[in-house]
């Protein structure tokens, strides 16, 4: 019994949160193109603590609709670096208007995951 409790304590504590590193601050702005439900989005990526723009990161964005979890399996799109430091751009096609949660996965010089809820209207 003692071994089981000790084992459980090791499992419980061994995989806690990672130590503090700089996290990502993400700003997303989207505009609907001439094709309905197709959006051109600008993403700005910076360090949360440093405030400095993050360049050379691999950024993937996956939309999901919170009211219909898992119902819209839209593929993740890659955000490409744009002309300014920390600026990235991506195009995505949604299934319908409404509130979407965009999951932004950042790898490279900064590793983080950020989810933002945005309302897409006609």
């Amino acid at each position, binding site marked *: 019994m003692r071994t089981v409790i000790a084992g459980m304590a090791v499992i*419980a504590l061994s995989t*806690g*949160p*990672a130590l503090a590193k700089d996290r990502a601050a993400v700003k997303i702005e989207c505009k609907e193109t001439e094709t309905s439900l197709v959006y051109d989005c600008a993403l700005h990526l910076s360090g949360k603590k440093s405030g400095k723009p993050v360049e050379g990161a691999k950024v993937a964005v996956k939309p999901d609709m919170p009211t219909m*979890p*898992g*119902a819209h*399996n839209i*593929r993740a799109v890659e955000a490409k670096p744009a002309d300014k430091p920390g600026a990235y751009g991506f195009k995505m096609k949604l299934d319908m208007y409404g509130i979407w949660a965009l999951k932004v996965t950042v790898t490279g010089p900064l590793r983080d995951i950020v989810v933002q*809820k945005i309302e897409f209207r006609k």
Partner: protein
Amino acid sequence: MDDHVITVLNNIGGFSFIALSAYLLLLSGEISFGQQAFYGIGAYASGMMTAMFGLSFWLALPLAMIVSGLAAAAVGGLTLRLRGLYFAIATLAFAETVRLILVATTWQVEVDGEPVGPNGSEGLGNIRWGFDNEYEPVDFLWMIYGTLGIVLLLFFLMERSRLGSIIRTIGADRLLAETQGIAVTRYKILVAGLAGALAAIGGAFYAHIQTTVYPENFDVMLGVHSLAYGLIGGLGTAVGPILGVLLDVGFLEAVEWIQGYRMIVFGGLVAVLLIFMPRGILDERRIHRLRTALRGRRQARTHGAAGA
């Protein structure tokens, strides 16, 4: 494996738990529109334990199951006198209450300089156990299907046990069960608790894959789907609800081109299916026929071998 395929498979696996949860209640004769509440309690409880208090997912998962199971047993106890439609409405009301409580709840602690915890309609974010420990979606795939395999095995054992017979007897005729000396009240609360714990598994996986959960994730849409899975796939076996999930998610994937109208088309198809197959595709009669055919083939093979 392609990331998109893994996401779809993770969704199928995750929804299978809430489908089995609603199926278990259906076996006991109860229709619940509120299993999303226990999926949500599982998601929030496990997410809070890993994100706010640094517990491992493998410890948070059983604890979330206990929290959700106890909540479900309490609801089961409070609604014992209700039957049919009244029970269904009570479960829906409970689920909406849970969702509204989540909208109204803010409780955050500081982790690595960041506020972490439920933040009303902004949800519970920073559920980073998987991300911080470098778990890829494919790792969650193995975790989900491993757990689902264990749950299915337990279901098969249960359905062949005395407990399984009791649950089906209560579901078929509560009065008959009572006259046979079955403690219906006790078993109803047990089934409600087990169903709540099952739904929590799906919620816990969902929270740790998504890393952020919102109260609206657990609204009536999820409850209706979880009930539909069992009714589409069939109530004859635990594989039925999983078949229902496969057909639902598979169908939604196949008709991606009709976009926002998919749910409307899906709803119509479910209605048509239920007219022709009221207890689903793999209903008790089909499963019985299948089992008899398999037994017959096995016996013929044994006799053939003995004759030779």
